[in-house]
């Protein structure tokens, strides 16, 4: 009888262990550590709009000045859903983060990139992080903030941002002084390819590693709209057609001109905030709406992190269906995590670019970045 009881107790303990094991082995998608926000390097602006000596044709910001140039790279603090417990408080926007970095290519033998974060808070104050610099030449990632795996390789914000990171955040940007064009290397400009931050979720824990795999099993593709006024028309010289931004988008106001002189509209695509885990993205079902789809000349791609050059462009074509003026991506684009997608359209004389839309999916959520 005693043996029978022991046996029952053992069975029950085994069952409990099995059930507890099942619970702990269940997918941990319900835990949200941080939102990973990334921006195309072309979103960086010089402090004075009229300043020349940089270009954005490839979706990166490439520096061609003969002197070091200052850039501000803003982050759109959107796409971070509030946790239910913060629903009424709305105090969850802060600079607490697990990761913050800028991908650059330093092609100057003697000068470096120097970058730091600037946080602007609701109370009107501003705080700066410590400055980080590039090391040597070539492509590299400047780490401003990092929660390393198992607590190793941690890097804090530093500066006065370190003590103020809990304050309510209004805007977050990176400020960089970029090296000049190296006069001994005219064929390779330094460039800002992409920049990102993993902002912590709500007021909860912020101690996990930045690349913790937490994407939910229900994470699917999102439809992303590209507003025409997020786009940029580089160097509008008098020799090429001129485009103007109106309430209906960008329009080439020239009535004629050869197809070699169509102005380019470059649109950074605001990719979805990724749930804790930065990963490669697939762009599909892209559609651009123009006034004259028969003269469409659009391509979507991204600046390569190693070269800064526009890579893997996917063209658009008329396929029937959709809205009048629609042209569609003719295949899928896969974008690596160290870059951001950019849409480029050349506008024929009289052409109007209204806007664009893409489906962007999660992929490879359980693989290392």
């Amino acid at each position, binding site marked *: 009888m005693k043996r029978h009881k022991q046996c029952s107790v053992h069975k029950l303990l085994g069952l409990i262990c099995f059930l507890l094991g099942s619970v702990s082995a269940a997918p941990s998608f319900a835990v949200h550590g941080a939102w990973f926000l990334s921006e195309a390097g072309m979103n960086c602006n010089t402090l004075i709009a009229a300043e020349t000596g940089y270009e954005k044709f490839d979706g990166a910001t490439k520096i061609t000045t003969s002197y070091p140039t200052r850039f*501000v790279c803003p982050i759109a603090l959107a796409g971070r859903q*509030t946790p239910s417990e913060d629903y009424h408080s*709305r105090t969850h926007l802060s600079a607490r983060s697990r990761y913050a970095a800028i991908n650059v290519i330093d092609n100057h033998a003697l000068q470096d990139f120097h970058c730091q974060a600037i946080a602007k808070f609701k109370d009107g104050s501003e705080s700066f992080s410590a400055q980080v610099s590039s090391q040597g030449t070539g492509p590299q990632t400047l780490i401003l903030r990092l929660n390393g795996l198992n607590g190793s390789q941690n890097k804090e914000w530093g500066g006065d941002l370190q003590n103020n990171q809990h304050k309510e955040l209004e805007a977050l940007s990176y400020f960089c002084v970029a090296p000049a064009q190296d006069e001994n290397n005219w064929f390779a400009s330094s460039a800002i390819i992409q920049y990102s931050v993993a902002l912590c979720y709500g007021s909860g824990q912020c101690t996990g590693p930045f690349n913790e795999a937490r994407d939910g099993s229900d994470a699917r593709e999102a439809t992303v709209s590209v*507003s025409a006024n997020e786009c940029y028309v580089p160097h509008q010289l008098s020799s090429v057609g001129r485009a103007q*931004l109106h309430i209906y988008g960008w329009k080439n106001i020239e009535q004629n001109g050869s197809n070699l002189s169509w102005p380019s509209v470059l649109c950074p695509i605001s990719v979805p905030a990724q749930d804790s885990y930065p990963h490669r993205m697939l762009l599909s079902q892209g559609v651009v709406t123009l006034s004259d789809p028969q003269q469409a000349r659009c391509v979507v791609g991204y600046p390569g992190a190693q070269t800064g050059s526009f890579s893997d462009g996917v063209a658009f074509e008329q396929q029937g269906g959709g*809205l009048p003026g629609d042209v569609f991506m003719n295949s899928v684009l896969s974008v690596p995590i160290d870059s951001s997608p950019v849409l480029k359209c050349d506008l024929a004389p009289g052409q109007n670019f*209204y806007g664009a839309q893409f489906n962007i999916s999660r992929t490879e959520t359980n693989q290392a970045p």
Partner: protein
Amino acid sequence: MNPFKHERARVKTRLSIFAFIFSSIFTAQSQADGEHTFNGDNIINVPDNLCRGAGENSLNVSKVISGNPAKFFVADNQVVRVQCPLPMRAANGYQRSHNAYNLNNIKEISIVTQGLESGSGIIGICEAFFSYALPYVGLAQGGRRVVSNRQLHTTTWSEPFTFATNKTRIFNYGVECEFHSDVEVMSLQMIIGDEEHH
């Protein structure tokens, strides 16, 4: 001792343990789901230094960025037109099979400006707008708001909106302002409710 009674008691004990374990599991799961239920607002803080010149004089708009705010300088007897985008970044952490946001759920759009010249009075007019497919391109505007020269002037559009729309395709959208005096765009913000919980 009735063996059936003993068996019933054992079964009852086991059932209580199962009930306890399962209730613990479901409690834990529902707490986790509580974290996973995004029923809050999306507060979109827009990088105001992305505001840019628009209209016929867009090439000549003089803009200086100081930290995050953007300053726009206006020559005497001139007017500058500025557009500020509202980047509606989606969240990939949960199901969003349609638009990043449903425009019907916009609760508030606000822009904060500061006059840079002395004096008082009106220095411009701002309007929130969305262009969308009808299927031909249409325009919804939120109403023109006067901007005064005072320090930190907040211009707000809030519910009910005249531009509320669930159009599935939106093109150019944001806030457009016309200024006739030097001004600094201090901040731009949109609050939009979660599409799936309204």
